[in-house]
């Protein structure tokens, strides 16, 4: 027994090292896939407060870009207003008032954003108290941005679209052909378009938008444009690169998407999944 303890003592440094490595890897595998780890993340209050100092320094250097984005957003909203007014003047009526409003948008400011790591996250300044819940979508005026991962009282952390595990249900707008968008881990300006079968005719420059199947994003939110197309004779699916429409390095304000019908859709789908065969 004495020799056993001697042995332990002799290798104590290595054992400590080994133990801490095991702990780290436990953290990596447990917390990086769950949505519960808000304490150890930038949604934690004090961390977010510190980061805001950093963000404000960076914002100063990006003022020009942010200004440009905001003014283009203004223009976009004005054009929406014009359409709306035209509709009102045409005595436009919504037939079914329960369907009139299935999405709500909430403006949020970015506290933290990374674009160059292999898995990127975004922290925003809206949290549980503002009604943000894990799983909600995040969009900007330019397109899809991400999906909420975990929330604290005042802040939330979201998976960026620039996260290799995030899949977005998408379609080619012109053809209505369904496919999936996934980031490839290289540049923040491009992503892969997966599972588009070869019988679909696709051209460079075609727009890719969301489908609205997963109740996270509204239908038709811009994701990007087809940049390059490649297919080998023996392959079923195209190899397509997208140019993403959101400029992730200049994001400053985003919208949190709240789907008011989501509980209903989800519970209905769960019901039919668990139902026994007739």
């Amino acid at each position, binding site marked *: 027994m004495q020799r056993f303890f001697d042995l332990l003592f002799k290798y104590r440094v290595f054992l*400590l090292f080994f133990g801490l*490595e095991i*702990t*780290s890897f436990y*953290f990596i595998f447990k*917390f990086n896939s769950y949505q519960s780890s808000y304490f150890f993340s*930038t949604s934690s209050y004090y961390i977010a407060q510190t980061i805001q100092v950093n963000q404000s320094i960076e914002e100063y250097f990006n003022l020009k870009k942010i200004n440009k984005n905001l003014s283009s957003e203004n223009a976009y909203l004005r054009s929406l207003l014009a359409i709306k007014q035209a509709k009102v003047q045409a005595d436009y009526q919504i037939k079914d008032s329960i369907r009139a409003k299935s999405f709500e948008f909430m403006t949020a400011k970015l506290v933290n954003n990374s674009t160059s790591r*292999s898995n990127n996250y975004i922290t925003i300044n809206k949290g549980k108290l503002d009604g943000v819940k894990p799983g909600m979508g995040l969009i900007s005026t330019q397109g899809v941005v991400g999906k909420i991962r975990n929330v604290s009282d005042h802040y939330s952390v979201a998976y960026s679209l620039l996260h290799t595990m995030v899949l977005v249900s998408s379609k080619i707008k012109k053809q209505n052909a369904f496919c999936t968008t996934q980031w490839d*881990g290289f540049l923040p300006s491009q992503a892969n378009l997966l599972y588009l079968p070869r019988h679909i005719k696709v051209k460079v420059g075609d727009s890719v938008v969301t489908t609205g199947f997963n109740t996270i994003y509204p239908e038709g939110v811009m994701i990007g444009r087809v940049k390059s197309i490649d297919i080998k004779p023996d392959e079923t699916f195209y190899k397509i690169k997208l140019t993403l429409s959101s400029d992730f390095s200049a994001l400053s304000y985003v919208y949190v998407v709240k789907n008011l019908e989501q509980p209903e859709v989800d519970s209905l789908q769960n019901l039919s999944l668990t139902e026994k065969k007739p």
Partner: protein
Amino acid sequence: MSLNSLLRLVFTFLFLIALQVLLVRTFVLFHVGFCFVYVGAIFFLPQKTNRMIYIVIAFSLGILMDMFYDSIGIHAAAMTWVAFLRQPIYDLLTPKGSVSENSWISISNMGWRWMILYVSILCFAHHIFLFYIDAGFNNFFFSLLKIIFSTFLSSLAILWIAKISDQKGSENA
């Protein structure tokens, strides 16, 4: 250990962490050059420090950084690894008896050549661990490119800090 030297050591330690969190955290050069200066915070601790304490400090520092990077565990794993490697690397670079055991790890005590090797080897060890855990082995060469660029940037920054916080003499002085 004189009070002045101790203060200088603590100041360097805190300065590196603050620099990382407040300034270079979001800094990326051409999508491949990251700067992780906080690694340097554990390079200059006195050689006499107990290795166990040393590893625990590194691990805690890693966890702190993980909170800022939303990557719980990854930085901690890399930091623990570097802390473990420090002693072997130190022994490898320093011939027996060439430097007093109690000397500060500083440029004026160890010389530029020693310092550049010491810092860049440890940075490289840290980055190789960090990037391959973070990204896995798909995008192998892209990650390698990131590692090489980032090692260069981090080492440069840490050497600059080493230069301004340079102190001669030993712990017993």
